[in-house]
C-alpha cells in the first residue's frame, strides 16, 4: 500500500522547471493541524520567524523578512506549494528562504545550532511528512 512506501529521499525529489513537485513525498495526506504547529514552533519549521499570517496568530512575534502568507492558498496549487516548502530556491532563484528538504550542498554546515561541525550525516530541516503537513496547512490559507 502507498502508506507503507518509503518517503521520497531529498536528493530524489523531482522539481519541474518552475520548481513545483507534483508527487507527494510520502503518499500520506498532509495533516493541516500538525502543519500549523510545525510552522509556529521554533525547533521545527519556525516559519513565523520570517512570515506573518493571520492563521498563525496563536504563535506570537511574526517576522517581516518574507511575504505575509494570508491568501497563499489561492496563489499556489499543491505541487507548487510543495516545491516552495521543500526547496524554495527552485521557485525563487537565490531566495533567502531556507531549503527545508535538502541535505547537501552547504558551506560549513553545523550540527544544528551548536556551532560545531556535524558528527553524522545531516538530515533535512523537516521530514517528508512534515513537508506534506505544512503544505496541507498552507493550502487552507485562502482569502
Amino acid at each position, binding site marked *: 500500500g502507498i502508506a507503507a512506501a518509503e518517503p521520497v529521499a531529498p536528493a530524489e525529489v523531482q522539481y519541474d522547471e518552475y520548481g513545483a513537485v507534483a508527487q507527494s513525498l510520502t503518499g500520506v495526506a498532509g495533516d493541516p493541524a500538525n502543519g500549523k504547529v510545525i510552522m509556529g514552533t*521554533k525547533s521545527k519549521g*519556525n516559519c*513565523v*520567524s*520570517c512570515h506573518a499570517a493571520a492563521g498563525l496568530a496563536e504563535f*506570537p*512575534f*511574526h*517576522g*517581516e*523578512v518574507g511575504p505575509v502568507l494570508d491568501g497563499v492558498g489561492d496563489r499556489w496549487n499543491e505541487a507548487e506549494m510543495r516545491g516552495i516548502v521543500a526547496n524554495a530556491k527552485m521557485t525563487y532563484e537565490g531566495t*533567502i528562504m*531556507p*531549503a527545508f528538504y535538502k541535505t547537501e550542498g*552547504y*558551506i*560549513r*554546515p*553545523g*550540527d*544544528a*545550532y*551548536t*556551532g*560545531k*561541525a*556535524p558528527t553524522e550525516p*545531516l538530515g533535512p*530541516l523537516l521530514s517528508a511528512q512534515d513537508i506534506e503537513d505544512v503544505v496541507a496547512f498552507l493550502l487552507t490559507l485562502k482569502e
Partner: protein
Amino acid sequence: ALASVAGAEGHGAAPLVINGDIEIVTNTAAPAHMENISTIQSGWEFRTPDTQDLQRDDFDNPGMLGVDDARETWATVEGSEGKSCASCHGEPETLAGVKAVYPKWNEDAGEVRTIEMQINACRTENMGAEAYGYSDGAMTDMSALISSVSRGLPVNVAIDGPAQATWEQGKELYYTRTGQLELSCANCHEDNYDNLIRADHLSQGQINGFPVYRLNNAKLNSVHDRFKGCVRDTRAETYKPGSPEFVALELYVASRGNGLSVEGPSVRN
C-alpha cells in the same frame, strides 16, 4: 535609505549625546566602497527608547563597569618585566583615536591586528605577561576602555594598501551563505535591516558600538563573540574568536561603519 532611517526606532528620539558632551553620529552617508546601502546606521538606532537612553549617561551604562575594572588593570603591574600598561602609555586617554582605526595593519608583525591582538602583543612582548583568552572578560573590559576614550571620533579603518587582501577576504565571508539555513551576513543585515526576524528588529550589524553590553546576557560582548553567535544561528560550524577569518570579517564589517562614531561600550538588548 531615507525611508529606512525613518522606520528605525531611533527616529524621533533625541540624537545620542553621551554625558551631555560626546556627540555620537548614529547615521551618515555610507562609505564609497558600499554597493547596496546608501545610509549607514548604528545598531543604537534600532533599539527601543528605553535601551537607547541607557547610553546617554555613563552612570546608566552598565558597560562602563567593565571600563572601570580595566582602568585598575591598566595601572596594575603584571608579568616578568615589572610593567603595567600605564608604564608605557601613561593615561588611557593617550590612546584616544586608536580604536577608530582598528583593525589595522601592523608593519612589524606583517598582519592585520584587532585591538584584542594588540593588547595581547603588549602583554606578551612588552610586559612578559600571559596572553588573555581572546574573548575573556578581562580582555573585553580592556577593549572597552580603549574604545571608550575614542567615543565620538569617526570610525576610519584603512581598507587599501597592505590591509586590502584581508579586507577582500572579509568581504567574501560577509557575502557567503553558510550553514544549513544558507544565510549570509548580508541576507540579514543588508537585505533585511529594519525588518523583524521573529521578535528581533534587525540592524545593519555594525560594530562601531563594540564591545556591547547586552541586556540579554548581562555582560560586555566582544565583536567575535557576536559574529560567532550570528554564524551559529545559520546552523553553521562557526569560526573561533581570534581566528584569521573573524579578524578579516571584523576589518570588513568595521569598514562598513566608516563615518559612524566610535560608540563602545554601547548597550543593546
